[in-house]
């Protein structure tokens, strides 16, 4: 896939950036409080970024050349439903995997 220069650029800069995020308050800002509006937005970064990343992969999977695949869509929705209701990461993962594997072997 990626050439080594790009890969190492990402590894090193992402490492520095992640360390910077972890160090910024502990090391530099001290215990002065952050503005409320900023904290309010920061609280939703993970639940916004990850769905935005995953949604196109679910609807237009690369493996099918971008064509919507009922099996992958079902697996994704099943994992979402189980994770949302049970709050259990592994239950959700197992459900998604079971749908994928079940459909592959069932239809093969």
């Amino acid at each position, binding site marked *: 896939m990626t050439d080594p220069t790009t890969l190492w*650029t990402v590894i090193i800069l992402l490492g520095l*950036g992640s360390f910077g995020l972890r160090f910024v308050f502990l*090391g530099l800002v001290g215990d002065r409080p952050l503005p409320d509006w900023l904290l*309010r937005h920061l609280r939703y970064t993970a639940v916004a970024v990850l*769905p*935005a990343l*995953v949604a*196109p992969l679910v609807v237009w999977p690369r493996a099918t050349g971008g064509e919507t695949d009922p099996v992958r869509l079902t697996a994704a929705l099943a*994992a979402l439903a189980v994770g949302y209701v049970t709050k259990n990461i*592994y239950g959700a993962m197992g459900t998604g995997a079971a749908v994928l594997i079940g459909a592959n072997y069932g239809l093969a």
Partner: protein
Amino acid sequence: MAGSGPMSSYWRGFRDGVPFLLVVVPFALLFGVLATEAGLSVFETLSFSVVVIAGAAQFTALQLMQDNAPTIVVLASALAVNMRMAMYSASITPYLGALPIWKRAITAYFLVDQTYAASIIDYEKHPDQPITDKWAYFMGVMTPICPPWYVATVAGAVLGETIPSELGLDFALPIAFIAMIAPALRTRAHVAAALTAIVLALGFAWLPYNLGLIVGAIGGMIAGAEVERRAEA
């Protein structure tokens, strides 16, 4: 009652950290497998886990590199996923901010979801610990979490090289992300953030350089913050 002294705090932390092995090891294995599937060597995969030491951000970067997204988009997206680390840093500073700078740097490096969660609960429960004990507790929690992260990454990478790529692990990563996010949708604001992000990411998927992801992410954050603000008002 908790005993006193740094050694006792260290071992209390260690015991509290052990259950997280169940979370850390499968994720690290999966990262190792997917990274080698994507063409990374075992050494590159291990370096990724040691240098970045943040699961969700590593998965994000890996996915976007496979999509041939521009490096700046890869970095912006993966760092956005890690934005919560800045909140952990802010939240733990009142407890550990008085440590010498080198200890604060070590703490920052090992500050991940699990070490933060366990430590902050302990500090609230035992506010009278001397700062040396607090730091010992943190290092105790870190011990069964961070080194196993590296080891399991290598195990996954070695294992991954033996898995034929036709097995179609392409969808393991979306499923893993969905499984991580779904339990985090605790309030209406979280749901609003996720739904807005999905709609915008799909609607703007035609944008070049994976910018639809950035539009979706920023829109989702604004939606979540706005719903929370209105709920409070």
